[in-house]
């Protein structure tokens, strides 16, 4: 899927030999007796940013992104229904064509990953409390901006990433690492929440249409 801007995400939720929902491999001590373990891995392709850079697999940014995704989805997936199992979500952001323009609008990788992974988990049939819709927001020149592009992110202002469960209005993850005055926090949060709700409307419509088409094709 691609969001406004040019960030595209591909979510692999079924690999050829592994299942999305499966028993725990490796150390069984990680198995939780009453719920499922959610495991998220983020890997970026070499052509995904402006310059072609090969990234080692377990580097800090990937690990952190994986951890954030895991926290987000542990809040949304009903893990009690599958004890002693593991749910794997692999996300890999792509950026199709590297344009000749120096300025590429493609910020908000976390938001794109969360939205794509929501669709993947939904499609795999794993029970979830609600959609998880995410958006980034920032504060530039006294205005709260939602869904920052790469240029706006690079400008160095405070940026917030928000993952929301729209139906109940609960926040799954809220992350910011910059300094923002508390008076502005409310506006920025509201801008991000509104954008996330708009994403939810879009995803809702797309999912309903897909379910409708799928049931027609299967002759239900």
């Amino acid at each position, binding site marked *: 899927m691609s969001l406004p801007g040019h960030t595209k995400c591909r979510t692999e939720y*079924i690999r050829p*030999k*592994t*299942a*999305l*929902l*499966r*028993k*725990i*491999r490796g150390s*069984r001590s990680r198995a939780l007796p009453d719920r499922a373990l959610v495991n998220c891995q983020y890997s970026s392709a070499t052509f995904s940013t402006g310059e072609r850079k090969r990234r080692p697999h377990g580097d800090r940014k990937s690990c952190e992104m994986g951890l954030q995704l895991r926290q987000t989805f542990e809040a949304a997936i*009903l893990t009690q229904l*599958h004890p*002693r*199992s593991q749910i794997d979500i692999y996300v890999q952001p792509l950026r199709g064509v590297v344009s000749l323009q120096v300025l590429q609008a493609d910020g908000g990788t976390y938001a794109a990953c969360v939205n794509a992974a929501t669709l993947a988990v*939904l*499609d*795999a*049939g*794993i*029970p*979830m*409390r*609600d*959609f998880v819709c995410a958006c980034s927001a920032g504060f530039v020149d006294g205005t709260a901006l939602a869904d920052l592009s790469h240029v706006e992110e690079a400008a160095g202002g405070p940026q917030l990433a928000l993952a929301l*469960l*729209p*139906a*109940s209005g609960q926040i799954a993850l809220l992350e910011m690492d910059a300094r923002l005055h508390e008076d502005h926090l409310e506006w920025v949060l509201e801008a991000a929440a509104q954008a996330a709700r708009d994403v939810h409307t879009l995803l*809702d419509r797309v*999912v*309903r249409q*897909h*379910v*409708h088409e*799928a*049931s027609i094709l*299967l002759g*239900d």
Partner: protein
Amino acid sequence: MAPPVRYCVPGERLCNLEEGSPGSGTYTRHGYIFSSLAGCLTKRSENGALPVVSVMRETESQLLPDVGAIVTCKVSSINSRFAKVHILYVGSTPLKNSFRGTIRKEDVRATEKDKVEIYKSFRPGDIVLAKVISLGDAQSNYLLTTAENELGVVVAHSESGVQMVPISWCEMQCPKTHTKEFRKVARVQPEFLQT
């Protein structure tokens, strides 16, 4: 005229807890029933009790073998102590990805467990009906048993490559070469016999 189908998405509020009871694909919160899957809403009304509200998906999500489930598996390798199998079907549902299972020597038969020889009960390539006794230990292999009359080898090929015919609970015969081979044979259910 079929009633209009209602599709729902996760997080959608379906109804009150007084109007229905939660089924599969739903969860309850604050006295309301919410959907947890993307699919079709179905209401099954039992006589007397509240209708059961559930959300059905067309394609079944990944099914995991549960303890006590009858599974169909294919023997991949044998040892003097156990046989390793690939679990292919759970009940009558095929699995998209096969799981590994183990049938220990003492779980092959119900009687005379110590006199069991795996080589005379299973061979690689046999299709076996077994029951899950445990989710397994560190190697994450399901533990299976065939210690019942209805469990055991269903399809086996002889050394000449022809499918064999069962002649007793412990022997199968090749129709081409008439040689008998030892297997732990499953008793065929009467409804599957063609007469």
